[in-house]
């Protein structure tokens, strides 16, 4: 399956990965080989095989509805780049 540099840039943008100008072309080959492998898997007969959501064959353990966490704000915020009045601060996301 062929993909182009524009698609690579779009995927990189969705994942917020910065690409240098020449990197998009380089990744075309890598991504194409991944897609080729997936295409090969399409050839396997899967009739009668239930879709697998998870490789571990056990059910999800559930947690009783109880509060078990204590307030650790100060410890968490000690590692944050910027905080004020208990808030985490980030670059402004709306103009």
């Amino acid at each position, binding site marked *: 399956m062929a993909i182009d540099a524009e698609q690579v840039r779009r995927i990189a943008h969705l994942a917020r990965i910065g690409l240098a100008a020449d990197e998009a072309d380089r990744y075309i080959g890598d991504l194409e080989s991944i897609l080729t492998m997936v295409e090969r898997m399409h050839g396997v007969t899967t009739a009668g095989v239930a879709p697998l959501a998870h490789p571990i064959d056990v059910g999800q353990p*559930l947690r*009783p509805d109880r509060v*078990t966490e204590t307030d650790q704000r100060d410890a968490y915020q000690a590692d944050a780049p910027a905080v004020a009045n208990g*808030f985490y601060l980030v670059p402004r996301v709306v103009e």
Partner: protein
Amino acid sequence: MSQWETVIGLEVHVQLATASKIFSGAPNRFGAEPNRQASAVDLGLPGVLPVLNEAVVHMAIRFGLAVDAEIAPVTQFARKNYFYPDLPKGYQISQLDHPIVGRGHLDIIVAGKDGDTVKTVGITRAHLEEDAGKSIHDQVPGLTAVDLNRAGTPLLEIVSEPDLRSSAEAVAYLRELHAIIRDLGISDGNMNEGSMRCDANVSIRPRGEEKLGTRTEIKNLNSFRYLEKAIEFEVERQQEILEAGGRIKQETRLYDSERNETRSMRSKEEAEDYRYFPDPDLLPVTITPAQIEAVRAAMPELPRARRERFVQQYGLSTYDSRMVASDHGTAAYFEACVAVAGDAKLTANWVMGELASVLNREEKEIGAAPVSPEALGTLISRILDDTISSKIAKTVFEIMVTEGGGADAIIEARGLRQMSDSGELERLVDSVVADNPDQVAQYRAGKTKLLGYFVGQIMKATGGKANPGQLNELLRARLDGDT
């Protein structure tokens, strides 16, 4: 009839009333100081794993059973990927392919000119997901402040089919959902605090056309009134565009309640692409028939069944029953009140009338009513046993609201007991007849409407305390007699 038909589908987010969050043991409470309820899991710190809260699974099953929906035997969580500061993991844990609640339906009551009609609205699905945090843009100049207390709050997103045909139907649907989630005890339904909020997908098409028109999505409507207003504005806006030969752009819009209009949200450079995939941190959740039956056995009475019961048990009209039985709190109040008062119709009138207007005036929920149902029941029983008239009862009720105290104490302390002593009333009738010879002559000449004049005179003289039924009878006997 307009040549256009409105088509609406709603997506309703309900915050589930659990003690802890959906994937962490942090408390799920509204109103804490910023970030005091955000644990390592909610912050998306490296190395943490989500563990599903069993209460949210039970709550979703409860909801599914209430709308006759299929409950998925295996349900699965997926990652919905997008970047925003209040979503620290870079993805929201949600459900896509295997939602916990499948297709169901909900009957709503649509009030019309010719009485109420029942309409069945399809429910496409309901799925579990975590809420994001909150971004505040005016807290610190030039920066965005992030509060992650809400991150990880359990949400049930309920998606309807595009079966609603007017803003009134949309409101009726949301009201019924609201009543159900409160009865089920799965959410407090407090719309002011965002416990229930709604997105409306709105389109119009020429009447008779089968194909749906292009829709717009109005985001984050947090009151019944805003839902109604936003849809009405949006329908009119779309009509104007189409009638002018234009085309509707599929987009997300925001409702501005101050200006009563919807506005286009800045359209993103790229179409939304959430790249959903199954969350490898969470295994598929198996729900057994035994689990479903256990939840079913503990289902409470729901609004529709309660409305029917109120008609049967109390002899209420379907209208009265809809008014007092739909909401959990109102129904509980009514039942406690009628147990003391005895007369269901009169009790319903008081709950819908005087009580509702006081709650409205004081902006209180019925659970915080200033007069207890038992106290109101006693007051009503004093009307029924002729201690006071309905009119005086309103005065007593107002005193109960503003100053407190029970009906009997207020009636005694203020001397409001109805005058039913026929000797006393007869004397008053005699004197009013003697004092108004002209009116008596006119009455006897056929102007019988003047009866009200005589009643008024005596009510004035007694401060409204004369028993009205008895007074009417005495007056008629006196005036219609020979002398």
